[in-house]
């Protein structure tokens, strides 16, 4: 038995016999004694919580192979882990805060039955140890070629996804099949599902409105095509041309992703609304009548293109960089014209990137909430409709669940299509072979097309951000252009008190909480996301597809539904974490993890497996291989997922509205409140401060993670690092 396995067995005992089994009541002031031994599961068990004592059996079973070397360790470990987890789950879900949780138990053993609080550190540690022991046992029985790192990783990721994605999501989706008082009513589901407001097609034949499902689908497809095309244009310019303002272009393309919600929408209204700045110019100079064209499909489309192009760019740039020039050179040597090469070699090699960018654009558009709220006018989409089904005058959670199921179906459809399109082709271009030549310059027409899409778009972005900056420093955008700092002073005033600095501005509280939550969730998201991507691309195990699907689930479900489902699932024992910052972090980690997974998969599918195999052949274990070979090559994906998760944690709205508390208030809910109150100036000023923080964070992430250096020479002929450097 390995020392690692032994260590986990010891930890499972520590969790049960030493650490506090239950979480502390919020009114309690725990002493040191409560932290050690006296609050442990063992002591609780002996003092009357009899249902904890059976856990001693699996704890003991794990010790058998330790004591007797003749015992088959794998079997014992598997049995111990499985039984331990089963017992913990069973007692956790049957004995709740107010006694038995199931009617049948109440009927059998009388009311109210024993009660217990939510799980604490001890329970968490013991459960985790049982899980790892189980995985080590499986490895000992030969799973995944006996690699404990791989089995443990798979086990941990699956467990996390079950707890933080499946569990809450099934809790709420079940309400699709219930009427308002909670009884099972499948007929209600059918009635709600077939509603004309969802599937109506009146807009094709008359000037009536189409159903909300078609609207959402149409918008999603437009946005996905648009963002992929724009992202590709930016990525090509940034990597394959000698455009002079590349750096600037990169910054500009990143800006929208770090803009808090509502701000882009507000800026568009201030530019193109009926009284907007550009509309005024058009009217006075060219006699173009002022209209409200921005409210509806055009407005949401523009806003979403602005907001999500950077995601496509981040995914695509890694892929475009990774394409090996060898193949392109081969094509040219065979006398293909540069256009033919681009069309038949370069573009097909980008397929994983294009498909992932498209998928993300589509899913993001479906889940977006802030932009449709401000700009959609009478063009209804599912995300806002779901939000108002929960909080609006209807107050119909079942309807929200039905709409969520439709949204989910669209996402899964896109996921399936993406898989079908990528097929089983091989996209490997990063191999261990040395220098692979100079990337070809873009064919003329491709370069021109890229410039013509990217540059006007960049200028447009500049205009939008100019409006935002102006908006932060004038009294009231659109009405009163007196320059002022009052918004910043209201939000970020700092006073000097006798005992030091006193942050008296109204925004500080939410500002600190947001930065803390974002900074904690970003590395976790990246780690879990990339680990998952590694498992999906580099390991083969049964149930891989459903595993992949599970990682996408929380991303596909609208934020409002996730928020409500987190309350429903985590407000009562066994996992009682509402009101803490922990629930916010977990919510962000599992909502944003798919981006880490997607960009990880896109990048990994380019990297030749022989690199890993070489490392394995040389005696490295898979953990070492991952750390020393795969991770350095994954730098673009690491940056993408770190940046994305940090930024999303700072800008997400709909998911956190229900999770914030007085102590952990988030910046976006503060901004929503300001927008609701009509204080656009303050909202924009706060947003600019957030943008600044995010810019700093992105620069810091870039610096810390660093750039990937592949064995590619740049076309300009500058001396380039050799391949060996990429694999330290």
């Amino acid at each position: 038995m390995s020392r690692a396995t032994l260590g986990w067995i010891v930890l499972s005992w520590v969790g049960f016999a030493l650490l506090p089994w239950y979480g502390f009541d919020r009114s309690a002031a725990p002493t040191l004694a409560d932290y050690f031994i006296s609050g442990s599961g063992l002591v609780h068990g002996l003092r009357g919580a009899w249902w904890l004592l059976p856990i001693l059996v699996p704890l003991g079973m794990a010790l058998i192979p330790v004591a007797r070397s003749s015992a088959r360790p794998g079997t014992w470990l598997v049995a111990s882990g499985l039984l331990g987890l089963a017992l913990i789950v069973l007692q956790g879900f049957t004995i709740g805060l107010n006694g038995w949780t199931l009617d049948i138990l109440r009927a059998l053993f009388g009311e109210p039955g024993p009660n217990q609080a939510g799980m604490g550190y001890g329970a968490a540690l013991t459960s985790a140890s049982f899980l790892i022991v189980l995985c080590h046992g499986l490895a000992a029985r030969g799973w995944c070629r006996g690699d404990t790192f791989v089995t443990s990783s798979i086990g941990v990721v699956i467990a996390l996804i079950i707890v933080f994605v499946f569990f809450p999501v099934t809790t709420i989706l079940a309400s699709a099949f219930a009427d308002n008082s909670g009884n099972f009513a499948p007929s209600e589901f059918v009635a709600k599902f077939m509603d004309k407001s969802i599937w109506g097609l009146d807009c094709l034949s008359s000037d009536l409105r189409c159903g909300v499902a078609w609207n959402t689908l149409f918008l999603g497809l437009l946005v996905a095509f648009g963002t992929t095309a724009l992202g590709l244009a930016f990525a090509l310019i940034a990597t394959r041309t000698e455009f002079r303002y590349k750096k600037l272009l990169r910054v500009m393309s990143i800006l929208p992703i770090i803009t808090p919600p509502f701000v882009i929408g507000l800026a568009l209204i201030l530019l193109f609304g009926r009284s907007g700045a550009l509309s005024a110019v058009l009217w006075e100079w060219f006699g173009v009548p002022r209209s409200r064209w921005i409210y509806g499909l055009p407005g949401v489309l523009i806003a979403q293109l602005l907001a999500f192009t950077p995601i496509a760019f981040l995914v695509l740039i890694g892929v475009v960089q990774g394409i090996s020039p060898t193949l392109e050179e081969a094509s040219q040597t065979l006398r293909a014209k540069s256009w033919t090469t681009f069309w038949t070699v370069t573009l097909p090699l980008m397929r994983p990137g294009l498909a992932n960018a498209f998928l993300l654009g589509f899913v993001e558009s479906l889940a977006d909430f802030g932009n449709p709220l401000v700009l959609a006018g009478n063009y209804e989409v599912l995300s806002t409709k779901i939000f108002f089904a929960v909080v609006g005058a209807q107050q119909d959670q079942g309807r929200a669940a039905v709409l969520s199921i439709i949204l989910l179906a669209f996402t899964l459809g896109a996921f399936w299509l993406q898989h079908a399109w990528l097929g089983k082709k091989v996209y490997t271009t990063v191999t261990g072979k040395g220098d692979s030549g100079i990337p070809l310059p873009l064919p003329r027409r491709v370069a021109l097309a890229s410039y013509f899409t990217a540059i006007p778009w960049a200028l447009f972005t500049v205009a939008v951000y100019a409006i935002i900056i102006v908006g932060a420093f004038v009294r009231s955008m659109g009405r009163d252009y007196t320059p002022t700092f009052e918004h910043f002073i209201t939000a970020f005033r700092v006073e000097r008190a006798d005992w030091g600095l006193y942050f008296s501005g109204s925004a500080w509280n939410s500002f600190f909480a947001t930065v803390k939550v974002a900074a904690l969730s970003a590395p976790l998201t990246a780690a879990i996301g990339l680990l998952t991507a590694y498992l999906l691309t580099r390991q083969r195990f049964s149930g891989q597809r459903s595993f992949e699907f599970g990682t996408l689930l929380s991303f596909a479900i609208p934020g409002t539904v996730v928020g409500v489902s987190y309350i429903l699932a985590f407000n009562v024992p066994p996992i009682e974490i509402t009101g803490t910052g922990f629930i916010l972090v977990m919510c962000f980690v599992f909502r944003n993890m798919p981006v880490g997974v997607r960009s990880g998969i896109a990048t990994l599918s380019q990297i030749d497996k022989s690199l890993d195999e070489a490392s394995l052949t040389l005696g490295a274990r898979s953990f070492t291989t991952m750390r020393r070979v795969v991770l350095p090559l994954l730098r673009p994906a690491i940056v993408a997922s770190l940046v994305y998760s940090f930024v999303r944690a700072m800008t997400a709205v709909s998911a956190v509205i229900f999770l914030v508390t007085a102590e952990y208030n988030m910046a976006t809910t503060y901004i929503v409140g300001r927008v609701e109150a009509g204080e656009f100036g303050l909202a924009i000023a706060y947003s600019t401060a957030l943008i600044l923080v995010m810019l700093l964070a992105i620069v810091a992430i870039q610096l810390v993670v660093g750039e990937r250096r592949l064995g590619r020479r740049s076309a300009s002929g500058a001396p380039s690092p050799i391949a060996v450097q990429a694999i330290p």
Partner: protein
Amino acid sequence: MELKKTFAAATMLAGTMTALSFMSAGAAQAQAQGELVMYCGVQEEWCRAMTTAFERETGIKVSMTRKSAGEVYAQVKAEAANPRADIWWGGTGDPHMQAAEEGLTVEYKSPKLGELQDWAVRQWEQSKQRTVGIYSGALGFGYNTDLAKSNNIAEPKCWADLLKAEFKDEVQVADPNSSGTAYTLLATIVQIMGEDKGFEYLKALHKNVNQYTKSGAAPAKAMALGETTAGIAFMHDIVTMVVDKAPVKVVAPCEGTGYEIGSMSLIKGAKNMDNAKKFYDWALTADAQKLGADAKSYQVPSNKSTPIPPQSPKLSDIKLINFDFAKYGSSAERKRLLSKWDNEVKNLPK
């Protein structure tokens, strides 16, 4: 290579730190004596003013979270098995009534009840003592004076004026499915004109509506920005724009109008019920209700002796109808009216 180690170490450190700092934070989030958890349903400034004033007066520490009334309702309902909040203060009356109907809140008879206006007490009676009125605001509309002048539109005075051809595509109102404000309009029109005539009116109004917004106060902002000439909203929301020097004028419709009653409820299963009741009694006093006007909220307070803010629309100028909150606040009637509006009005061609 050091870099990767640092990264891995940092990740692990962050993970541990998260778990530790937040779990202990959760544990330390004590609710012992001297604490109160409040969900607040009005504007941030007003919420904060109430929080600090109550803390100063009683020494009880208030943890306040601000959300819209519908969001508070959804949260209270989701948390019903293990309630987190003690008191729900502010926000339009419908969700409070809904919560009362579903038994999410509890009965309480405050000693201050006698000092309240009749409409506030009626709210308390209709909800079987589970929610009480703390302020009220009349529904009305407003118009952008600059736009009206440049388009030669005469000052609208009545609901009927909004049907005029000159307001074609110039009226904005929220969607009653998403906004309590717009539902109040729907119920008001039905009560003033009768259901058949009322829906005729709404159908005619539909031709002039340029956008059904999601949020009830959005038309007030759109008017201030000049995105629409007229907008229907609660008058105090429009007044906020006027005070902010927007070229907007508030109108109290001549046919009479409905109103909302901002309410307060005690959460069933509250962990600090005594403190919640202290807050409840205090929030009904004139001193506490005065804070609204200072925080730029111009609703009419429910305590008879609270001075009415000078900016508030004069109640004497407004013809208030006898709004039947019990009938139009019930979920059955609301569902019926909303689906009727969906079928007969919303899907009409322009």
